[in-house]
Structure formats: C-alpha cells, structure tokens
C-alpha cells in the first residue's frame, strides 16, 4: 500500500497507478481486494464478428439484386428481385430470432409462423395475387402451428407455459375471419377448418385441466 501524494489517499497494492489521478505509484503486488483482469472481455467485445460479416453480405446482395432488377426493367418488366430479397430477409429472421435467440420455443414457432406467412403472401402478391397463400397456405399453417404447440406442450409435465401461445394461436385463427370478409380468400372451408381445429384444442384444454387452466389465467391476468 502506497500513498498517492497528489490525492492524499492510500492506494491498495494491486494498483501501479492511482485510480483517481493516474499518477505512477510504488506498488508492486496483489491484494485481497483485487478484481479480475478484463482483457478477455474487451477482446470479446471487439467489433469484428461473424454476424456482422453476414449482415454486410446480405445487405450487399439485396442492394445488388435490386440494382440489377431496376437496370434491366425495360427488358424484363417484373420486379423479380423482390422474391430473393424476401427470402434473404426470412433467412435473417430465422438466424436471429430462431437460431441465435434465447426465447421460449413457443415464441420461436410463432415468429416462424408469421414470417413464413408473410413471405408466401408477399410472393403471391408479386405474382398476380391469385390468393393461393390466403386460401390454402395461411389456414393450414395455422393448423400446423396449433398442432406443433400442442405436441410440444404434451411432452412436458408443465404444459402451462405453452398456454399463452395456444391462446394467441386461437385469436390468430379467429382473425382469419377477416380474410373472408374482405374476399381475400377463394374458399371458406380452409379458414373455417383452422378455426374449428383451434377451438377444439382450447375447449379440450379447458375441460381436461380446468383447475390448472384457472391458475394460469390468474397468473397472466392478475385477477
């Protein structure tokens, strides 16, 4: 322990320089108040990373595709570049939100559902919007979503954590009634099938485990 003459304080042994004024001190050792060295952490915090490389490559690919499309628009008047661009965006969402992310699997499945629906809907729109995505893809994806969540939930003895997601799916399916109202779908039976399937799942949930269901409602809504 040495005194820093400038600050007039005693400085513990591990410091070669005064933490207050940075002047050099005569200390040479270690002490019990020592903290770990952060060199490794600094190194990990450095700017260079794989994610940033991929980000740069993806953005470059998007800009290049768009440029080529616009430059050749007079020869080929479709905006074909939107399809590979949307696929790249989907790849990014999958990378960040599904592979890298630490959230619950239910959350990941929901995000995948939304992104795949959005991707296929966009491709449909870019190709003349013959409504195949809204008629067939989205309703059947919803059924798959509910089924997948049910399977995951059934595997665990603590299935309640999936309840929020199952309820969300139910409301998503209900909202597909909107599709019918705006004539965005070519056939009613697909959306109705999806709604009925999810409704049956929720009813089954309420009937077969009604005490646990009530407990979950209390938790989530603080009733």
């Amino acid at each position, binding site marked *: 322990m040495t005194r820093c003459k400038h600050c007039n304080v005693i400085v513990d042994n591990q410091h070669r320089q005064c933490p207050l004024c940075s002047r050099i001190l005569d200390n040479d050792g270690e002490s019990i108040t020592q903290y770990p060295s952060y060199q490794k952490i600094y190194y990990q915090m450095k700017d260079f990373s794989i994610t940033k490389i991929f980000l740069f490559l993806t953005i470059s690919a998007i800009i290049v595709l768009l440029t080529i499309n616009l430059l050749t628009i007079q020869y080929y008047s479709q905006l074909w570049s939107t399809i590979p661009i949307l696929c790249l965006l989907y790849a990014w969402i999958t990378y960040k939100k599904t592979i890298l992310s630490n959230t619950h699997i239910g959350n990941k499945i929901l995000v995948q559902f939304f992104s795949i629906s959005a991707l296929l809907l966009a491709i449909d729109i870019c190709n003349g919007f013959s409504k195949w995505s809204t008629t067939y893809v989205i309703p059947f994806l919803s059924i798959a979503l509910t089924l997948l969540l049910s399977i995951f939930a059934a595997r665990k003895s603590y299935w*309640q954590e999936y309840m929020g997601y199952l309820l969300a799916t139910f409301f998503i399916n209900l909202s597909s009634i909107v599709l019918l109202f705006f004539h965005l779908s070519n056939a009613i039976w697909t959306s109705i099938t999806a709604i009925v399937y999810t409704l049956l799942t929720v009813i089954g949930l309420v009937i077969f485990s009604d005490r646990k269901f009530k407990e979950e409602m209390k*938790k989530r809504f603080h009733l």
Partner: protein
Amino acid sequence: MKEEFAVIKWYRLDNAANLFPSVTNIHNTSVYRVSVILKEQIDRDILQKSLDCVYHRFPMLFVRLHKGVFWNYLEQNTSKFTVEEDKEYPCHYITKIKGNSYLLRVFYYRNRISVEIFHSLTDGNGAIEFMKSLLYYYLVFSGHTIRLDQNILLADGGVDSCDIEDGFSNYYEKVDMKPNKEKNAYHITGTQFENYGNNVIHGVVSASKLNAVAKQKGATITSFLSALIIYSIYQTRMQYSSHKNPIVVTVPVNLRHFFPSKTLRNFFGVVNIGADITRETTVDQIILKTTEMLKEKTQKENLLQNISKNVALEKFGAAKFVPLFVKDFFVNLGFDIFGEDKKTITLSNLGRILIPQDMYEYVQQFETVLYTTPKSPINCGVCSTNDRLVISFSRIIVETDIIQYFFSHLAEKEGVEVEIYSNDWGIDYDKV
C-alpha cells in the same frame, strides 16, 4: 424428459418491482451488487454447497421473470443454480431477463463473494439478509464455529407469508397528494469508456471516525456524504459553468424502519435532497441543509405520500386491463420525467451490516455497488461492518474529477484517512 415439479410457485411483483422490467436495458441494468471480502481465498465447492443450502430459504429470489398479458410475474425457476467465477464488470445486464435465466447471480474471485440481484426481486435490505445467510453457511462449512448472537435467516427456518408480503400494499393509505414541483436536476456528463462498462472505485474509511466528524457537524453519515458529493460536483463541474440547475442526491430509504415489516421483497422509498449552490456556499452550510432536508422528508407523513403515490397507480382499477406493452411505454415515460430528470446522483447507504461476533475474524469488509444509467453516469453505494465503511463509486465515464475531489476533501479537509482500490474497468494503462 418429464420434470419433477408438479406445482410451480409464482409470485406477483411487489409495487416497486413493477417498474424495473419496463425500464431495464443494457444501459440501465437495474442490477446492483453486494459483496464481501474475506481474509481467506474463496473455495468454489464450499460456496456452491452453501448456496444449495440456503436455496430453499429464499424461494422468492430464485425465480425467473415471466411476461404476462397485463402484468409481469415471477415464477419458480427449476434449472440448476451454479456459482460462477467473476469475469464481467459489476452489475452488467442480465441478457435473458425475460427468458429462462435466474435474476440473481453469485460470483467469486480470489477473496471476494459477490451477489448481484435484479431490483425486482428485493432491495438492499433483502440482499443483505441473503448475503448474511450465505456467508454464515460458507464459514460453517469451511470448518469455523459461528455462534448466532445476531439474527441470521437459517436454512431450516420456514418461509412464511411475512417474507413475501408486499409492504407497500400493506401500509397504503389514501392521502391527499401534494403536487410535485421539483425542478430538473443537473446531470453529470463525460466521455464514455471505449468498452462500455462500470468502473468502480472503492474508498475505505473508519466508520467511527466518519461518524464522529459527521456528528460534530450535526449530521448523519448519509447527510454528510450527500453534502460532500454535492460540494464535489459543484467544485469540479458547476463552479465556472452557466448551469443553474440544482444538484440533487436521491437517497433510498428503508421503509422497514418506519413501517414494521419482515418482508424480503422490496420495501423502500426514495427521498430527493438537493441544493442550489453558489460560489460562496461552504461545505458546512450544505451539510446543515442536507441534514434538515433528510430529516423532514423522512417524516412518516411524507413517506406515506411516497407509498401512496406509487400504489395508487397500480390499484387504479383500469390498470388491470391495460396491456403490458402500453403500460411499459407510460412507465418508461414516468421514470424519465419523475425519476431520472429530477436527480443528479444516487447515494444508497445500507448502513451497518450486523453479523455474529465470530464472523469478524474472517470478514475483511462488505461492499455495495450500484448500477448506472445514462442520465446518472456516477452512483454511490455505502455500507459498513466492523469499523470499515466502504464508499463505492460506479461510473461509465472516464473522468474521475468528482470522485477524486470527494476523497481528497475527505482525507485532507475532514481528516479522515481513505484507502482506495478499483476494478480498473476501461483503463488502458499503456495509453495513460
């Protein structure tokens, strides 16, 4: 693989705890640290064994945060809890805050055991009770005999409802609200470290000496240190500038001293003591002012105002039906307008930590480190045991002028010897 937990316990967040999940991010982690430095090096296996022992005595601490539709809530965490070696800067962000991670961390490095807690779980008082129990079992499993002449929460003591009650709701009374007419406070600015993180400088003084000096000036340790901080900020930053805002120190107050409660959750209020300083103001004048303000604002009626203001918002009927993301937005706004804008720096004094007499032989000192925020880049934590009082400044800016002035003044003008050490985060000694 089927899990063994048939019933998973869950807890509502207490009134103060509701704030933190909404405002927490990497620059405002809401994680604070309480550490103890022992005279012998820490044995990892004994520490893990002690932790496994106290785990079931503090179930409200070993939880994960779950996002509900209208409220967040805490749920028992069923994964294994392990102690880790200290590697990162103190009070760094818990990344999986809304995922599966624990909201509490126990670190060890050389002679130091550190407990880092997300503020939604408990306040400084609760953290200390946990640390005391952990430390007690650590020393006992290390082969030392410790007689229980002080209150320690033992592992075989059951958890009763007093431990998890919401003190705020308990003492809530409908009172007439006095309007809040505080001015915006002065904010400290500086150059951020190249690598973002908390640099901590600790200053150790004799608790009895500091107490004597404070008493001589008619102050308590808290009001004395607050005054000194205000004076240091003025002398280093405001003296020659055109800023006219008051320097305000936020002091968290343990409400258990005024409203009896055994709760191990949050039960604290914050009191703002500030001063408009001029060049002619002396340190002693500031000390008188802070002492008077602290005394007045910790009168029971004023503290009740504090409690009521917060609980009223939560109990407001319609709040039950406002979705969480909307609540988050307003909480954030309120936090800025009524919280961050109105203060310069936080000074949290956890007071004397009372441990059994036999422990003094093995304990060097305790430390408490607060988290920083963008508008409050320097914060101060104080605690003491066995005549060693440790004042810890955490900062995210390079400049040490305020802290240097503070300690030098203490050493030279008040005659209190100071011993300094730091974690040296962000300091590149080749460049300095």
